[in-house]
């Protein structure tokens, strides 16, 4: 008993710092969301105003597409890459390091580079497609309402799939060899090995990584903001960008705080599931 309370005493400084760094901003955001810019209490007015804005439902739907689309392709591409990198072939070390490049490049650099490559007039992608005559006219990748969100998702997938690959690869390498041997003795083909040996073994890793990716995609702002700022006509406006715009472009900190509070509720649910899953996995592997 006595021991326990001494322990609390030792973690107190860390708790204080954590409180200042985490609890204070959250509490302050909560306070901002129910006051006006003069600091008067206004109840749920800010929530009502921001929910009534035309951009809010658009941003919500876009965010769903953005998160779902990104995760789907990141996980599939990442797992396939991991399986490939787990095979024995010449130059595997080089391929492994090259795969990591997108993930290592700073987000803002990647975004600016892609923006230039995709530009209708100056972009190299349109040049590569028009020069050999694959397409007749340059495509407005970033200005065509039907291509811009898929392009954003593609860039995000390109950026993050190496992370999935590395995590899953680590999982694959911890699979004991006798499992493969047993499968081979039973006459399993390569794809049966993938399906019945590899995937079940790395499932906990995939679930944890997916949840982590959901959290990141929800909070992600760099790629879209640097390339389209949420345009054209809000086609790529996602909720974090709407929060940023409301606060720093429209000077409506209180409405932005209200939106953040609602967004926080969604994000914290995912975080909660993530913590529960990873904790359960850790328990299961013991």
């Amino acid at each position, binding site marked *: 008993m006595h021991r326990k309370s001494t322990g609390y005493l030792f973690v107190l400084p860390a708790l204080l710092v954590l409180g200042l760094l985490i609890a204070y901003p959250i509490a302050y955001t909560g306070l901002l969301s129910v006051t006006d810019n003069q600091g008067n209490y206004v109840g749920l007015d800010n929530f009502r105003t921001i929910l009534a804005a035309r951009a809010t439902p658009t941003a919500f739907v876009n965010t769903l597409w953005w998160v779902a689309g990104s995760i789907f392709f990141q996980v599939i591409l990442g797992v396939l890459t991991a399986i490939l990198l787990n095979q024995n072939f010449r130059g595997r070390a080089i391929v492994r390091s090259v795969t990591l490049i997108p993930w290592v490049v700073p987000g803002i650099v990647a975004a600016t580079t892609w923006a230039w490559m995709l*530009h209708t*007039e100056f972009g190299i992608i349109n040049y590569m497609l028009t020069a050999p005559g694959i397409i007749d006219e340059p495509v*407005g990748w970033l*200005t065509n309402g039907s291509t811009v969100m898929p392009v954003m998702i593609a860039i995000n997938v390109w950026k993050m799939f190496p992370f999935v690959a590395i995590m899953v690869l680590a999982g694959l390498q911890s699979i004991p060899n006798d499992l493969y041997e047993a499968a081979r003795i039973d006459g399993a083909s390569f794809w049966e090995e993938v399906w019945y040996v590899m995937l079940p073994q790395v499932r906990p890793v995939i679930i944890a990584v997916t949840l982590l990716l959901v959290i990141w995609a929800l909070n992600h702002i760099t790629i879209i903001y640097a390339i389209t700022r949420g345009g054209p*006509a809000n086609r790529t406006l996602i909720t974090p960008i709407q929060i940023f715009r409301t606060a720093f*472009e429209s000077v409506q900190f209180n409405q932005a705080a209200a939106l953040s509070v609602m967004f926080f509720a969604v994000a914290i649910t995912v975080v909660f599931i993530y913590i529960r899953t990873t904790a359960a996995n850790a328990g299961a592997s013991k």
Partner: protein
Amino acid sequence: MKTRLIKTGLAGAVSALALSTGMAFAGEVVWWTPNFNEARARELVTKFQEANPDITVNLQITTTDGLPQRVLTALQSGAAPDIIDVQHGWVNGYAQNNLVMPLDDVLQDRDDYVPAALDYVTFNDQLWGMPYRIESLAVIYNKGHFTEAGLDPENPPQTWDELIAAAEALTQNGRSGFAITGGGEVGNTIFRSMPFMWMNGGGIISEDGTQVLVNSPETVAAVEFYTNFYKNGLSPSSTLENDGTANRRLFIAETVSMYQAGQFDVNSIKTENPNIDIGVMTIPHPEGMDTAAVLGGWSFVIPSDARNPDEAKTLIAFLSEAENQGYLTDTFPARVSAMDLPRFDDPILQVYKQMLPFGRPAPAHPNWVQITQAYFDGIQRILLGDEDAQTAMDGAAAEIEALL
């Protein structure tokens, strides 16, 4: 003895360093100015300090990219510098949120200022910023392209119909006649399309901020006129991602023959493509109407949390003397008398000078940024082909109505 001296000296140096990075001295003015002002600002600071040896000026250079966010964060955080250069249009928002202090006591010679510049930064009958630079857009065109297309380069279009006709004639060989903007920061499109509404008797909201004008017949006609340059193929296919800078780049590459630009574009065109014979015309107007332009520019503000506001005011008063203001500005000064300086005699600037009297401030409204965003979204919906001009502007009107 010697080591002790060194030790004391070191300690002194260290604490001095800590002080200079951590906090401002009494009598020190921290001044944030954008990088395009840097060389001239340094010169003026040296001059100022010779006359005021008891005030130190700590000049810090900012970049305009992301500046609104940076200034806002500084103003909100309570750790702001003493003077910040901001665009006229931002000042009202700061004033309404009590983030800056009134500067009526610094203003001398009120009659010498272009009235629209002062109106811009006035709120509740008080002056919240000291304008030092004003500018408006005009249309820059390529005289060579005019000759090739059989147009007279010395007689550029005056009216809307003539502008359309010229743009049609110039759109050939992969060139676009008249580039409009439909991307980048919202302000690019506001500055370029709002004058057309004003000339036609419309606008986004009324000047007193009580009425929505964005879906009035006059405004919709102007919006149609503006967006049709893209819809009819007279503006580049990249219009939806182009801001003013992108248009300048296309003009330098000679794929665009006319576009709206400020005088600050002239020099970079001259240096990057000296082959272009640059012409400048006033922005064409509807038959029988006057031209119009949005008056832009920069002002000094003093944050409410400034540590040395009195010294800051002394520096602003010095910088606002006609000669210094005329020296500092990248475009035109806000003071009429400063306009007489020889550097404003350049013939290519004369058209810009002619535009100034037609320059009007953008309406001052606490929700102006959101209002322009709603309007800009409407413009993009038209350019994307989602909605026609009337529907898009009705949609914008509904959003703006809720913001008034």
